[in-house]
C-alpha cells in the first residue's frame, strides 16, 4: 500500500459524483459526512425541501457506510446480528434492521439488502466494521467494507419514478417498496432499490464509481422536462423528521460510543420495538431486551407536534406547563407541508406511561431580545407525513 503524503491538502474526500455538482453549489455550504465533502445546502433550502415533496430530488449517498456480507452462514450470521425476524427477507428485497450490544442497547440502524441466497449488503449510519467482524466469530461468512467501492444516489420525490424512466432506466413500474432490481441506464449497469430516508416515493441507485458521472448525466439530462434538484443534508433533516425516522448518534447515543452509564438507549426506548422479535431465535442483546420488556417502560423517543410557529430548538419538556421536567427535544423542524412545528423528544415515562400533558419550555429571540415561551406538545404515534403516492405500485406518471 502506498501512502499519499499530500493527503492533508485535501482532508475531505470527494465522491465520484463531486465533479458533477462542485459547480452547482451557490452557497458553498458544505458538510462533512463520513470524511466526504457533501452539500449541506446547495442553493436554497426551501427549493431543496420542495424538490423532495413535490418534484424530484437527487442526493449523493456515497458516504453512507456499506458492507458486503457473503458466505454460507450469511443468513445465520445476520440472524444473530440484528434484532429483527428476517424469515420473510428474500433475494431482491430490503429490510430495515437495528442491532444491539449484549446489554440490548442500540449500536446502529440500517438497511439490509439481500441480493442472493448468500449475498447481502448492510448500509449503516456509522462505521461498523469492527462490530460486524466481532459478531462473525463462529460463522463462515466474509465481511468487507464497500463504502468507497459503490457510488450511490438517492432519487426521491413524487416525480422520481418518471424522471428515472425518462432517464432511460426501464423496469421500475412493478418494483414495489423495499424491492431491488438489477437494471441498466443506457450501457451503465445500475442496481435500483425502492428505498429512502425521505418518507416519499423514491429510489436509491447503486453504481460502480467509474459509471457514477454517466448515471448522473443521464438523470440530469431530463432536467428540462422535470424539476430536478441536487439536495443537501439540511433538506434531508427536514424530510426525515416529517417521515418520523430517527437518526442514530443524533436522536440517541450509539451504544459503542456512549461513555456514561445509562446514556445509551434500547430499541424500545427509541420507538423501534417493532423491529425487535424476541422469539425469532437468539441474537445479541436478546436476554437484556427480554428483561427490559418485562419492566415498565422507562422512557421513549416520542414524536411531538408543538403548538405555535416559533422555532423550538433544543428545549426541555415538562409534564404540564411549569410542571416537572421529563425530557428534552432531540431534533425539530418546521414542516412547510404540514404547517406545523415537529419534534422528536426523549421523554421519561411516569409510572410506565407517557405523562398526560407535555409542554416545551424554550427561548427565542424577537429583534435580538430573548424571551421564554411555553408551548403545548401533542404526541403522535404515526409518522407525521406519509403520502399515499409513496407506496403506490406502479407509481403515478407525470
Amino acid at each position, binding site marked *: 500500500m502506498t501512502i499519499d503524503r499530500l493527503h492533508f491538502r485535501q482532508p475531505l474526500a470527494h465522491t465520484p459524483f463531486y465533479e458533477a455538482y462542485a459547480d452547482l453549489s451557490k452557497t458553498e455550504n458544505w458538510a462533512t459526512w463520513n470524511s466526504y465533502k457533501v452539500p449541506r445546502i446547495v442553493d436554497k433550502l426551501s427549493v431543496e425541501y420542495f424538490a423532495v415533496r413535490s418534484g424530484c430530488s437527487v442526493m449523493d449517498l456515497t458516504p453512507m457506510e456499506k458492507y458486503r456480507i457473503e458466505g454460507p452462514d450469511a443468513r445465520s450470521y445476520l440472524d*444473530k446480528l440484528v434484532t429483527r425476524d428476517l424469515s420473510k427477507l428474500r433475494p431482491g428485497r430490503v429490510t430495515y434492521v437495528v442491532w444491539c450490544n449484549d446489554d440490548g442497547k442500540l449500536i446502529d440502524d440500517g438497511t439490509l439488502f439481500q441480493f442472493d441466497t448468500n449475498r447481502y449488503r448492510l448500509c449503516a449510519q456509522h462505521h461498523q466494521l469492527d462490530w460486524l467482524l466481532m459478531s462473525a*466469530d463462529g460463522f463462515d461468512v466474509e465481511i468487507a467494507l464497500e463504502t468507497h467501492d459503490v457510488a450511490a444516489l438517492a432519487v426521491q420525490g413524487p416525480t422520481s419514478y418518471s424522471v428515472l424512466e425518462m432517464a432511460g432506466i426501464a423496469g421500475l413500474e412493478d418494483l414495489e417498496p423495499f424491492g431491488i432490481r438489477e437494471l441498466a441506464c443506457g450501457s451503465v449497469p445500475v442496481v435500483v432499490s425502492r428505498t429512502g430516508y425521505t418518507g416519499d416515493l423514491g429510489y436509491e441507485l447503486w453504481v460502480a464509481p467509474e459509471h457514477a458521472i454517466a448515471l448522473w448525466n443521464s438523470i440530469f439530462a431530463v432536467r428540462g422536462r422535470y424539476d430536478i434538484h441536487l439536495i443537501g443534508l439540511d433538506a434531508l433533516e427536514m424530510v426525515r423528521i416529517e417521515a418520523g425516522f430517527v437518526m442514530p448518534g443524533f436522536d440517541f447515543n450509539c451504544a459503542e460510543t456512549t461513555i456514561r452509564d445509562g446514556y445509551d438507549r434500547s430499541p424500545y426506548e427509541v420507538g423501534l420495538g417493532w423491529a425487535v422479535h424476541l422469539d425469532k431465535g437468539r441474537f445479541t442483546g436478546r436476554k437484556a431486551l427480554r428483561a427490559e420488556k418485562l419492566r415498565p417502560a422507562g422512557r421513549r423517543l416520542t414524536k411531538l407536534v408543538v403548538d405555535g410557529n416559533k422555532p423550538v430548538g433544543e428545549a426541555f419538556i415538562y409534564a404540564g406547563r411549569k410542571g416537572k421536567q421529563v425530557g428534552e427535544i432531540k431534533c425539530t423542524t418546521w414542516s412547510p407541508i404540514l404547517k406545523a412545528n415537529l419534534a422528536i423528544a426523549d421523554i421519561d415515562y411516569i409510572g410506565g406511561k407517557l405523562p398526560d400533558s407535555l409542554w416545551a419550555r424554550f427561548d427565542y429571540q424577537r429583534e435580538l431580545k430573548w424571551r421564554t415561551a411555553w408551548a403545548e406538545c401533542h404526541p403522535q404515534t404515526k409518522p407525521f407525513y406519509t403520502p399515499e403516492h409513496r407506496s403506490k405500485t406502479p407509481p403515478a406518471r407525470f
Partner: protein
Amino acid sequence: MTERYDAIVIGAGHNGLVCAGYLARAGMRVVLCEASTAVGGMAAGRRFGDGERYGVPGLAHLHCPVGKTLCNDLKLDDFGYSVGEPIDTIALAPDAAPLVLGVDSVKGDALNDADIAAYPQFRRRYAGFAAALAPLFETKPPRLKNLATGDLSTLTKLGWKIRFGLGRDIMYEFLRVAAINIHDVLNEAFDDERLKAAIALDAVLGSAMGPRTPGTVLTWLQRLHGERHGAIAMSNGTLVAALAQSAEAAGVTIRPGCPVERVLIDDDRATGVMLAGGETLEAGIVVSGIDPRATFLQLVGAPQLDTMFANRVRQIRGAGVVGKLHLGLEGLPEFSGVDASQLRQRLLIAPTMRHVERAFNCSKYGECAEHPVFEITVPSLADPSLAPEGRHVMSVNVAYLPFDVKGGWQENKAAIVRHILAELATYAPGIESQVSDHEFLSPADIEREYGAVQGHWHHGELSIHQSFMLRPLYGAAQYDTPVEQLYLCSAGCHPGGGVTGLAGRNAAKRILESGAAS
C-alpha cells in the same frame, strides 16, 4: 434414545469429580462425562515408555492435602484418601551447594544468619496473608453490583480478617504488597539468590509471569492458601481414586471415554449434551468442569453467545508455558551436591530470580528458554510400582516453553527436548545415558491430551484481572454463565488452579443454593 438426568457434569478432572459428588449427595441424579478413558484429568496418573513400563503420578505430580471440609463432606478418608509424606524443596545452584527449604526452616552452605532467621518469619507472615484471604477463596466470589446477603457476608468476613485478623500494621503491609511483584518483596526480605529464586519460582510456575510481573505476590498467596491444610507432597493417586469412589457411592454415573461434543441449548437454556457418537443426554443443569474457553467456544459455540461476551472469552489470557518431561531411567539419577535421600524431595533448578526472569522473557517472544527452570521429582522412590525393578522414573516440569513456539512444536520438539536434557545434564551429569524411555508434553500436547486450552494448568492466567469476581471473565462470575442452567466448575473459575477441589465445591454450593437444582 435420550437418557435424562438432574445434572450432567462435563470432565472428570478433580473439580468435576468434587462437583458431581456434592450434587449427588444433595440428592441429584448425576452423570459425569469424561473424554479420556480414565478419570482425574491432570491429577490422573499416566504410563509411558516401551510397553508403558513407566508411570508418573500425573501432570500434577505434587499437591497439597485437600481441605478438611471437602474430606468430610465427601468422606474421602473412607475411600482411601491418604496424604503423601510432606517433602522439602532442594534448590540447586550451578556453583554452590543446594539449599533445603522446609515449611519453617531453611538450611544450606553459605547461607547467612539473617536469611535463616527471616525465612520462618516471612513464611508465617505470608501464610497469615493467605489465611486472611481464605474467606474469599473458599466461597463464591462476591458480586459487587447488587450485593446479595451472602456476598456481603463474604466481604465482611474478608474485611474483618484483614483488619483484625492481621492487625493494623500487618494489614498495611498486606495492602502494600498484595498487588505488587514477588521479586521486589523477596529482595526486601532476603539476601541469598538461591532462596529468593526458589520462593519466586513457586509464585510463577504455571503462569506466563516472571518474578517481576505485577500480581505475583497474589499468585504466591494462592499457592500458600493451597498449603493451608498441609505441606506439599508427592501425588499418590489416592485423591482421584477416592473422589471417584465417593462420587460413585453417592450415585454419580461416571462415563469415561465419553467426550461431550456440544452443550444442547434451547432458547438460551442448556438442556443437555450431545456426545461424540451422537448420543444425547438431557438434564436440568449442565456443569462444565473443563476450561471455560473450551466450554464457551467449542461446546456452546460463539454463535450462541452475545457478541461482546464471546469476544471477551477470546481475550481470556492463559497460554501455558510449562512442558512436562517424563524420563524412564536405568538407575537413580545423580545431581551434583545432592545425596540420594534428598531425591525424595522436590528439586528446583532456578538459581537466581534473574535466571527465572530471563527464562520467562524468551517465552514472551515465542522462544523456549535458553536456560529453562526445572521442578524435578523422582516419584518411583515413593512408589516403586512406577518403574520396573532397579529402574526409576523422573517427573519434571520445564519452564518457560511457549505454547505457540516459533516454527511450531511438531517441527522443533526433538531439538527442544535435546536441549532440555543437555541443560538438565549440567546439574545431573550423565543423565542422558541413563534415559531408557522418555515422554515430553509440550503446552500444545497438554492442550490436546487434557483439553486445557493453550496447555494452561489453571485454565486461564491467575492474574488480578482474571481473579475473584472476574474469573473466568466478566459476565460469568459465581460459576454462572449467560446460558441459563449452564454452570462452570473448573480451575478456570474462582479460586483458580491447584488440586484443591475448591472450584468444584464452590460451584456445587452455588448451584444448590440458587435452587437451579430443583
